[in-house]
């Protein structure tokens, strides 16, 4: 059932078209003017006239099956369905008449004859549109109902079906199903998975998941679109069944991936009953995925740490204390360490899972209160090359488009991204465009599902060897330039001529031809040539990419190569094209925007810029350092050499997420004071001395910025379980250190951000409330934001081409390490899994597995499900094998959602030359069958037991 407060106009708006002219019709004596192509049902709704309906809903194409929305049209015979009949000039329509009432009455009686009673439906705590329609039409009983014997209908009916409650989040009760196909159409049209169908014919028709399988075992991805579309109680959220009806709605932004879906949190008291994607949400348009819609239970999980804690040594048990004691202890330790080891011996890490305001405050704390620039963020290990690469080529460290732009793309090139797993709601939109006929080029070592999925088949899958992205991109550019596909006029007008000439000569060199590079990439030259021609000759060619681009030793080079290609083909600066990084976490873009990198203030301005620094010094009333600080991996090195001793980490788990775990934990162990602010006692907390209880996205106010630069509000639904919103803890910490912070609401922090950051100058909470969301830049030149960047000219003025020589990674396969390991994500889990592992999502994925090709498995005697040891130059771990052809021979793959898996025990210190983003995607390994955990895993279990003990306090005060 759709959101509490949604008034359903029944059919979608008419397709937007400049040619669509206004049409005026008269409905029940009232005149209304609507765009050509609008349904009569929708036109009536605009007059406040809700025509009875069951199979129609505004998120789906009109279907015309329920026969309830019939109307009379003057001059026309019969009773056309108002959902499938569009308006025409001068139409006079009646939605109510004796005859229409009679017809609807009869239809409703037929439906009710094989449907649970109103009381039975009400018991599910869900609405039933059928009973609502019957009540509105005055239908209280059905002439067609079967006589009952001992309370049971005597005759064929559907009232004894077995409920399917296999899915952890919703129930399918076939008794209440009216076979309207809304669920099937939602799965097809909105989600694009095609997991549901209507099985059988006539009376035997029924909704079926895959081949009559339970929902859990079917192809269903549990996005919940079917549950929301269902007009009856047939598909109902288990939370609604268990907790009752919500009584209020709070609009907020999802805390999972970089799509940044807008949700209506439907709440009873302070308890979330369900999350309903907002149809007004500009990023998601009413769609959601299994994480955003259902996997919010972690917020109230029993593992939440809700009291501050401290300890002198990491081997001591934690001791619960008051906020004051924890904050004062942390401040005294940081002061002591700075006095003993110097001002630069401390630092902080901001979080992509926290709000812009919280992130801004942590970097301010580091720069102003710690007095140095040792601040970094988890974008270091994901999209830092995007920031560097796009800033240098185009002038701004962000994607160029809004998500809706994909609906105008003719050719989509998807590089190193797996959106159906990592960015599922955007993937559904992309699939809609592909089903409309857009072409698809996939560049990925692995056979991701978009290579071939219902109604979609990639035109090219360039299945390259891990680590050869730049070689492949150079060979694509070679074809574009040497075969005359480059847009010379565009380049001449918009790009630096010298850089263009230099780049053109470089890519034209025969050494970069597809034929020459085939031996490096493993991709047939003809396929490269075909893909290059397809992208370059498209009216609109759009590139989307993910961590398969950035997490390489040449991550930044590859981002530049992508920008080069887009500039050369004129695919920047308008709708339907662009360079679009798919950001991993909800606020990666925002955390970067907010000045989380050690070398720059908010808005990507270098700390050495005297004028910018003076602006911040004046606002913050303190001198600031002009030298860059330490990046996260530099912090580890500095910790090991003794020059870095204390770290404040808000909402990150570097002991699990960062590469070469044993190196990271050695560095953490060498520090004297680590302050962790988190929801849970995470992996890094095992090495911490102070724990500040974090607040989930449901417990605070603020903003997130998604992958399309869209700033969306996060609104508090419940009080923070630990007593403070995250920004409030930072304020207390700053004050304890002697640097005054006096904010009382995050809107004041946003005002400061706007005052200090030109791209945010026009952003206020009032404007966000008014517009729903805003894409930066938002300032006097673009008061309502900027959906498409670089229109007319690039942010840096002229676009700059960079020569992108392919340099092989130093990580080589050898006879000792003959396979290449690459890592990634899965739909139901998120990042380090701290949130999703504490939800029912574990029914789909309860451990990380190692994907291995049948050939590689066979030669090693490995069967599906066997335990295998994975050894690299950095370390060794043990996982269960999954034998699959999704990976190519010579390549293995795993996820890193479970700490005990130790996926990052194996990954190495290799990193991107420009940003130190780790090379997660290329690790040389050997895989062998084993029968016991690795030595690291044994030590991990001992450490977990020893370092997570808590001595509970009985009289702790705030």
């Amino acid at each position, binding site marked *: 059932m759709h959101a509490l407060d949604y008034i359903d106009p029944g059919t979608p708006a008419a397709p937007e078209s400049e040619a669509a002219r206004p049409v005026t019709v008269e409905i029940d004596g009232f005149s209304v003017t609507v765009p050509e192509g609008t349904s009569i049902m929708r036109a009536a709704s605009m007059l406040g006239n809700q025509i009875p309906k069951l199979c129609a809903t505004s998120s789906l194409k009109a279907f015309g099956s329920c026969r309830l929305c019939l109307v009379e049209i003057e001059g026309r015979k019969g009773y056309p369905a108002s959902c499938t009949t569009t308006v025409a000039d001068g139409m006079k329509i009646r939605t109510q008449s004796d005859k229409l009432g009679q017809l609807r009455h009869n239809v409703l009686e037929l439906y009710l004859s094989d449907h649970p009673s109103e009381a039975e439906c009400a018991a599910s705590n869900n609405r039933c549109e059928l009973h609502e329609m019957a009540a509105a039409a005055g239908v209280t009983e059905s002439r067609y109902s079967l006589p009952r014997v001992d309370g049971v209908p005597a005759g064929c009916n559907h009232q004894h079906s077995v409920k399917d409650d296999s899915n952890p989040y919703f129930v399918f009760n076939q008794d209440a199903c009216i076979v309207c196909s809304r669920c099937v159409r939602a799965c097809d049209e909105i989600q694009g998975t095609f997991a549901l169908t209507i099985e059988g014919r006539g009376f035997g028709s029924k909704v079926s998941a895959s081949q009559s399988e339970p929902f859990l075992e079917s192809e269903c991805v549990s996005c919940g679109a079917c549950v929301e579309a269902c007009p009856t109680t047939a598909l109902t959220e288990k939370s609604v069944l268990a907790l009752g009806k919500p009584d209020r709605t709070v609009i907020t932004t999802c805390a999972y991936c970089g799509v940044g879906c807008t949700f209506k949190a439907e709440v009873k008291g302070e308890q979330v009953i369900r999350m309903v994607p907002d149809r007004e949400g500009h990023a998601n348009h009413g769609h959601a995925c299994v994480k955003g819609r259902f996997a919010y239970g972690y917020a109230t999980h029993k593992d939440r740490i809700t009291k501050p804690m401290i300890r002198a040594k990491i081997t001591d048990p934690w001791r619960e204390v008051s906020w004051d004691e924890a904050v004062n202890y942390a401040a005294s330790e940081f002061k002591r360490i700075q006095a003993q080891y110097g001002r630069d011996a401390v630092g902080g890490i901001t979080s992509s899972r926290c709000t812009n305001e919280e992130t801004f405050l942590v970097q301010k704390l580091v720069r102003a209160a710690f007095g140095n620039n040792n601040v970094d963020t988890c974008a270091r290990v994901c999209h830092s090359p995007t920031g560097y690469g796009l800033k240098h080529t185009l002038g701004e460290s962000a994607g160029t488009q809004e998500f809706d732009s994909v609906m105008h793309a003719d050719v989509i090139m998807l590089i190193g991204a797996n959106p159906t797993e990592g960015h599922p709601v955007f993937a559904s939109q992309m699939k809609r465009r592909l089903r409309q006929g857009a072409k698809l080029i996939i560049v990925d070592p692995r056979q991701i599902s978009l290579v071939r999925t219902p109604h979609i088949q990639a035109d090219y899958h360039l299945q390259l060897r891990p680590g050869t992205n730049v070689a492949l991109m150079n060979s694509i550019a070679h074809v574009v330039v040497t075969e005359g596909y480059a847009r010379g006029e565009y380049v001449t007008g918009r790009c630096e001529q010298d850089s263009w000439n230099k780049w053109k000569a470089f890519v034209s060199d025969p050494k970069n031809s597809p034929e020459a590079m085939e031996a490096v990439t493993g991709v047939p030259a003809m396929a490269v040539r075909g893909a290059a021609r397809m992208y370059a000759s498209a009216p609109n060619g759009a590139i989307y990419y993910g961590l398969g681009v950035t997490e390489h030793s040449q991550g930044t080079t590859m981002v530049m190569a992508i920008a080069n290609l887009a500039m050369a083909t004129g695919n920047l600066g308008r709708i339907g094209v662009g360079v679009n990084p798919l950001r991993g976490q909800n606020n990666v873009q925002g955390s970067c925007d907010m000045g989380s990198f050690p070398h720059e203030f908010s808005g990507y301005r270098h700390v050495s810029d005297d004028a910018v620094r003076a602006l911040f010094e004046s606002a913050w009333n303190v001198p600031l350092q002009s030298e860059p600080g330490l990046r996260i991996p530099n912090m580890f*090195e500095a910790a090991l050499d003794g*020059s870095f001793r204390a770290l404040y980490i808000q909402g990150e788990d570097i002991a699990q997420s960062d590469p070469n775990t044993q190196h990271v934990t050695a560095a953490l162990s060498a520090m004297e004071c680590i302050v962790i602010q988190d929801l849970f006692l995470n992996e890094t907390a095992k090495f911490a001395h102070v724990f500040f209880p974090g607040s989930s996205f449901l417990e605070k106010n603020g903003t997130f910025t998604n992958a399309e630069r869209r700033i969306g509000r996060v609104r508090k639904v419940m009080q923070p379980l630990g007593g403070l919103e995250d920004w409030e803890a930072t304020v207390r910490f700053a004050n304890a250190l002697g640097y005054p912070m006096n904010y009382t609401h995050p809107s004041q922090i946003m005002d400061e951000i706007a005052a200090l950051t030109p791209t945010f100058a026009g952003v206020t909470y009032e404007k966000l409330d008014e517009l729903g969301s805003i894409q930066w830049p938002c300032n006097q030149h673009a008061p309502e934001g900027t959906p498409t960047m670089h229109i007319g000219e690039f942010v840096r003025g002229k676009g700059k081409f960079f020569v992108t*020589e392919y340099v092989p990674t130093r990580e080589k396969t050898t006879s000792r390490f003959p396979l290449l390991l690459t890592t990634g994500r899965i739909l139901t889990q998120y990042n380090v899994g701290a949130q999703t592992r504490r939800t029912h999502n574990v029914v789909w994925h309860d451990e990380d597995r190692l994907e291995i090709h049948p050939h590689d498995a066979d030669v090693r005697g490995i069967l599906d499900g066997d335990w295998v040891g994975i050894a690299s130059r950095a370390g060794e771990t043990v996982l269960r094998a999954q034998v699959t052809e999704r990976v190519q021979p010579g390549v293995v793959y795993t996820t890193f959602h479970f700490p005990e898996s130790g996926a990052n025990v194996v990954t190495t210190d290799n990193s*991107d030359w420009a940003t130190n983003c780790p090379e997660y995607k290329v690790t040389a390994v050997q895989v062998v069958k084993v029968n016991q955990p690795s030595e690291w895993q044994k030590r991990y279990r001992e450490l977990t037991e020893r370092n997570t003990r808590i001595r509970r306090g009985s009289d702790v005060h705030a």
Partner: protein
Amino acid sequence: MHTDYLVRMANDIGSFFASEPDPSVAAESIRQHIHRFWDPRMRARIVEYFKETGGVELEGPVRAAIQRLAEETAAKA
């Protein structure tokens, strides 16, 4: 901070600029990158390494870049 870690980072930066035909331009680009993105203690350590060893493990124009960094540091001192 371990010298081999810094040397490896510097050489990685150098690899990007290896295609620059003018070694002087390459060296200056590498110096600028290190100046803009390395914490002062890292720069000081690699300069120290350069003074001690002549930068034997620094590849191509990276050695000249670190030499310029050393001169810059000396000039500021």
